[in-house]
Each structure stands twice: as structure tokens, then as C-alpha cells.
């Protein structure tokens, strides 16, 4: 990894890895936007949003409930880890979630820590893009409200996320962020409720599919917290240096493929318990910074070493075993056995 001034993917990964990510982004652009130009994409998107808002206006509470139910079903880790979700469809002016604490300016940080955080942010964004499409599984419910909604949701998500594979669009987005002219369509934040000893996902969005996207993002933000060390100042500094709005377009662009690689690894394990996926991600995030970057890079390039692969499979099996013990209430018996040894 070269010396990092700004934590850019080009500086974190080898050229071979970047070529792979860019290749996937090019394919994704074709899949998501087809032959539409940027202008056509933006114009169509601008037509769709008001149509969706109009169609949803009499079903807001129901849709908020469906969004929470849907994500909870699609990600059973939410129930297992007792995560609370506070999700609302709001008008554009009400999207911003009040910040709980003033952020401080960051001093310089070891580069691998920042690289790790940047990759984790990418995975968070990537997971939330993939997760947003889960509404197709709930088509029957949504059709009962309005049978035109599902098609519109599919189209708006393809358009919205497809533009992050367009260099032209990213350049414009970055220019707008630099001029502070961006207006978000949704926002999410994770909080830890000390009193209830519980993670809380706060999500706000202007419409249902964006709300689902934000809830999943909040979930993966919680998973992402597991990648930090114990040094408070360092943690604050890393967040200050890496969690920047200007980093988000590239996180959206490349993060989905990094997420796919990790998700595929979970798929390879043939474990049929979706909770294992997020819990396995936390184990990956807990790896030492340099080891983490190396693991992810090898994973993207489909070049995990035998030891890395064995470690990953072993971790997933161990998580699965622990979850089974929790589910069957065999934890107590296991404790007795352990003490007898």
C-alpha cells in the first residue's frame, strides 16, 4: 500500500484490484442504467420521485412498518442482537438526523487504520444497496397498497444507484458536495442506548425503498463499529478523517463489489443461517488493520490463501455452532461440560 494522503481506493489497493473493481463497476453501469445517458437517467429519476411520493402518501405508516418488518425478516441478526429500529418516511427537509455529539477535527492517523475504515464504509454502503432490493420479496404486500409501486421502486433504485458507476455522474456529485449543494434523499445513523444496552438504527428517507436502504445501512454501520480499537482519540480521529461525504460516491461505486465478495464467501460456506453473515463480518472487521486490508484484497481478486480461507470457514462454522446452542438453549449444558473437563 502506498503512502496515503487521502484514503482513496487507488492508494489502498493494488492496480490489479482496482482494475477488477472498475471492471465490475462498468458491468454494473450497463445492468443498472442500460443505454440511458446521464441526462436521461436524471430526468427519469426526477419524474419518478414525485410519482412515488404521491403514491405513498396515504400509506406512510403502513410502509414504515413494512420496511421495518422486511429488513427484520431479511436480516435475522436484528432480532438476535436485539437491535431497535426507528424508521420514518419524511419530507426532504426533515431527513437530517440530529447529531448526538459534536465532532472534533482529527489529527493525522496511521494509514492502515484509515484504509480499514474506508473499506468498511464501502462495505456498509454496498450492503445497503444490495439490501434495498429486498422489497421484491414482499411484492405481494406492496401490490395490495398499489400495484404500480414495485415497478417504480425497482426503477428508481436502479437509476439512483446506477449513477454511482458513471464517472461523469461521480465527478458532478463530487463537485456538488464540494460546493455544499447536495440534498440527501435519506439518512441513517446508529446509536447505542446505554440505558437499554441496545443498538438503535435511526433511518429517515423520502420514500419506502430509500427507507429500506437506510435501515440496512444503519445495520451495517453497527457491524462496522466492531472494527475499532480501544483508543478513544484514535477512533475519533479515524472517523473524522474517513467518514466524509466526499468519500461516499466512491464507497457506493466500489463498496458493493467488496460486499459481494464477502457475501459470496458466506455463500460458499453453505451455512443456512443469515445471522452468520453479519457476525462473520464482525470477525473480519476485528482483524488487525494490515491483515484486514490483505484479506479483503485477496478476496476481491479471488486469491485468498489456504490459511485465510480455512480461517474464514472455521469462523463461520463456529458462529453457526454458537447460534445453534443459543437457539436450542443448550448453552447451559455446554457450560457444565466445560467445567467438568
Amino acid at each position: 500500500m502506498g503512502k496515503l494522503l487521502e484514503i482513496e481506493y487507488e492508494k489502498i489497493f493494488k492496480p490489479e484490484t482496482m482494475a477488477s473493481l472498475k471492471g465490475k463497476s462498468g458491468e454494473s453501469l450497463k445492468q443498472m442504467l442500460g443505454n440511458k445517458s446521464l441526462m436521461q437517467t436524471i430526468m427519469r429519476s426526477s419524474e419518478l420521485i414525485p410519482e412515488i411520493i404521491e403514491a405513498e402518501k396515504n400509506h406512510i405508516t403502513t410502509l414504515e412498518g413494512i420496511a421495518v418488518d422486511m429488513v427484520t425478516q431479511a436480516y435475522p441478526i436484528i432480532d438476535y442482537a436485539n437491535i431497535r429500529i426507528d424508521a420514518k418516511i419524511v419530507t426532504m427537509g426533515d431527513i437530517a438526523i440530529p447529531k448526538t455529539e459534536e465532532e472534533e477535527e482529527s489529527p493525522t492517523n496511521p494509514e492502515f487504520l484509515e484504509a480499514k475504515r474506508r473499506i468498511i464504509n464501502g462495505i456498509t454502503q454496498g450492503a445497503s444497496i444490495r439490501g434495498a432490493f429486498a422489497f421484491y420479496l414482499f411484492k405481494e404486500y406492496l401490490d395490495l397498497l398499489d400495484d404500480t409501486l414495485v415497478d417504480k421502486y425497482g426503477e428508481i433504485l436502479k437509476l439512483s444507484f446506477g449513477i454511482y458507476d458513471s464517472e461523469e455522474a461521480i465527478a458532478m456529485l463530487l463537485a456538488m458536495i464540494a460546493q455544499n449543494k447536495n440534498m440527501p434523499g435519506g439518512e441513517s445513523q446508529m446509536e447505542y442506548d446505554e440505558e437499554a444496552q441496545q443498538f438503535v438504527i435511526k433511518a429517515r428517507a423520502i420514500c419506502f425503498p430509500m427507507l429500506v436502504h437506510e435501515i440496512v445501512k444503519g445495520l451495517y454501520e453497527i457491524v462496522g463499529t466492531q472494527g475499532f480499537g480501544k483508543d478513544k482519540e484514535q477512533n475519533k480521529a479515524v472517523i473524522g478523517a474517513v467518514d466524509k461525504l466526499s468519500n461516499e460516491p466512491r464507497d457506493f461505486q466500489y463498496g458493493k463489489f467488496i460486499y459481494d465478495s464477502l457475501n459470496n464467501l458466506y455463500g460458499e460456506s453453505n451455512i443456512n443461517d443469515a445471522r452468520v453473515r453479519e457476525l462473520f463480518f464482525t470477525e473480519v472487521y476485528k482483524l488487525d488493520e494490515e491483515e484486514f486490508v490483505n484479506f479483503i484484497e485477496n478476496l476481491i481478486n479471488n486469491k485468498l490463501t489456504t490459511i485465510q480461507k480455512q480461517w474464514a470457514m472455521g469462523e463461520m462454522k463456529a458462529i453457526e455452532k454458537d447460534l445453534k446452542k443459543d437457539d436450542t438453549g443448550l448453552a447451559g449444558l455446554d457450560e457444565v461440560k466445560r467445567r467438568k473437563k
Partner: protein
Amino acid sequence: MKLDELKKIIKEELKSILEANAPEKKPGTKEAPPKEKPGTTPKRRGFDKPEPGVNPKPKASLKETEKNLVDKITARFLKSKK
């Protein structure tokens, strides 16, 4: 064997098993309070409480920048037509 005798034997057997498996306690030491709330079963896996200083900023979706993009492209288009 009477039922009462059987109960007594079972109770004694259970008591001896529990004692054999009880953690060793030094005199005068107090047991640590349980981490979980009463009535809940501790789970083997999950997410640890965030480390100090871990308070990520809200992540925004930039979707609605599109409106601004349209305005910008339109303005550029109109300017070029003049």
C-alpha cells in the same frame, strides 16, 4: 422404594452435581453482577458495545442531488444555447 425416598435421593444427587460444578469462590469475594438483565439468557455472539469515541457521522444517500444536477445541467444547456 417410596416416593419420598426417591425424591430425597434425587435431591441429594442434584445437590452434589451442582456443588461439583460450582465455580470456586474465595472467602470475602463478591460475585460480579450479571451482564444481562434478569430473565434474559446471555448470548454467545452479538455486537459489542461501541468502543470509546466510536460515533460515526450519519451517512447520507445522495439520491436527491439529482434535482440539483438537473438544475445544473439545464442551466449549462441553456447557457450554451445563448
